[in-house]
């Protein structure tokens, strides 16, 4: 009896182990932030690349922190993220190579239409946050080590504050979910403009504060270091980086608009 069981077990394991061999066609895994996926940009960006090169792109949308971690562990071939400091140390520590600037947009503060903290019209982010603190208005934080969360923590640091209290709530979820939560609770939150534009029509919130230089939000693309993981799809990953930073790829980014508003501004090459 044991013989039969072990035979079956062997066949099962063999089957499970064999299948990935077939999946070795031209494929790359891209770990990216929820903001590029939730905003709908990747739906525009990937199909023309896949059609031209025959390389299929498998997208894993997570927070920037987790995306960089996946790159470090060699579980993906490249990352598209927005955390300049995190990206620099990712490259400096030898996890990634060939970092390129892809695009930028900016962060904005959205909140309830009646604006209890009266941040509308302010162009200084520190002042706006201070008003939210002073009025103890509800604020939803991403709380997930994403690029947006890192930016928020950086802004609190500028302010010399450690946000705490019942008015400050950490959701631990993606940008879209946090916008929903803030909408339901009539709370303020920090969001990237791309996701905000994609969600605006479904949200009861209003854009209240924008235009501070410190809200700049650049996106970088980095290939995972092929010297670390010999079987990473490095060449295909570099093809994708080349395409995204080419005039063609940058034009797709430039042309992606919702109600006439650009979500991301290309920054790799000038778009004609």
């Amino acid at each position, binding site marked *: *009896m044991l013989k*039969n*069981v072990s035979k*079956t*077990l062997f066949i*099962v394991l063999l089957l*499970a*182990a064999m*299948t*990935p061999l077939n*999946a070795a066609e031209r494929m790359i*895994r891209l770990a990216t932030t*929820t903001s590029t996926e*939730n905003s709908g940009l990747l739906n525009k960006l990937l199909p023309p690349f896949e059609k031209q090169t025959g390389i299929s792109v*498998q*997208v*894993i*949308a*997570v927070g920037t922190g987790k995306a960089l971690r996946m790159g*470090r*562990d*060699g*579980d993906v071939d490249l990352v598209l993220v927005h955390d300049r400091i995190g990206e620099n140390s990712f490259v400096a520590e030898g996890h990634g190579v060939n970092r390129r600037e892809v695009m930028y947009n900016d962060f904005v503060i959205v909140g309830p239409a009646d604006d209890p903290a009266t941040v509308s019209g302010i162009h200084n982010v520190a002042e706006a946050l201070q008003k939210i603190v002073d009025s103890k208005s509800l604020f939803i934080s991403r709380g997930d080590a994403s690029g947006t969360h890192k930016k928020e923590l950086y802004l609190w640091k500028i302010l010399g504050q450690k946000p705490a209290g019942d008015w400050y709530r950490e959701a631990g*979820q*993606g940008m*879209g*979910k946090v*916008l*929903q939560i803030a909408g339901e609770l009539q709370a303020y939150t920090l969001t990237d403009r791309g996701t905000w534009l994609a*969600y605006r029509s*479904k949200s*009861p919130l209003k854009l209240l504060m924008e235009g501070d230089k410190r809200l700049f939000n650049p996106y970088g693309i980095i290939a995972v270091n092929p010297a670390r*993981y010999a*079987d990473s799809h490095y060449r295909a990953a570099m093809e994708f980086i080349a395409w995204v930073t080419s005039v063609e790829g940058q034009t797709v980014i430039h042309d992606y608009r919702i109600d006439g508003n650009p979500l991301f501004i290309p920054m790799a090459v000038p778009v004609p």
Partner: protein
Amino acid sequence: MDSLVDASKQALMLLFSGDATLWTIVSISFKVSAQAVLYTAVLALPLAFILAYGHFPGRRPLIALFNSLMAVPAVVIGLTLYLLLSRSGPFGNLRLLFTQQAMILGQMMLCLPVLVAMGHSAIQAADRRAWETALTLGASSWRAMQTLLFEVRFALFAALIAGFGRIIAEVGSSMMVGANILNHTRNIPTAIALETSKGEFSQGIALGLVLLILALLLNTALTLLQGRGEMIA
């Protein structure tokens, strides 16, 4: 914000208009979970049998262990498997992370305790004489086990359905080791999680409806089978 009724209406439209993305997700869900439950059954049935009929030290603690393993959260299984399969983990060079195979493995780990525990109690409840008679009639112990398993097939069927129900609806492990990649590892539960986070409630409800319809079909089938079983006995 669309209301529940609107979302459900749109959901039905999506389902019956044969939306390709939606149906790919549905088929991935089925493919993965059906394979997982089948492979697990092959492992679990002999195990359940040994636990019910074997005499060896540590049998009772082992039964207790399998019973308590049913309560392990899917994310914990997912995280454990993730760390094992990650490129920097011990089985990294198999390159299984973020594939359907990884999802199958995770679901097998979730399903195994259910099948073993339920299978064990089914076999335990069987008439011991069937086993003894088969042995007296000269059957090998392998053959006698098959006879016994056949005797309790309806209870085993219920165990399979319960196991399938646990894994077709789980999101924690699939999200972790599959990573919700479109057309590769996006199944019904991870898609519902994603669509909900995007505020696409009708897509989420459409997928929820598929799961519900599936559960109904399975349970109707089970009831019919059991009903027939009663008449034969």
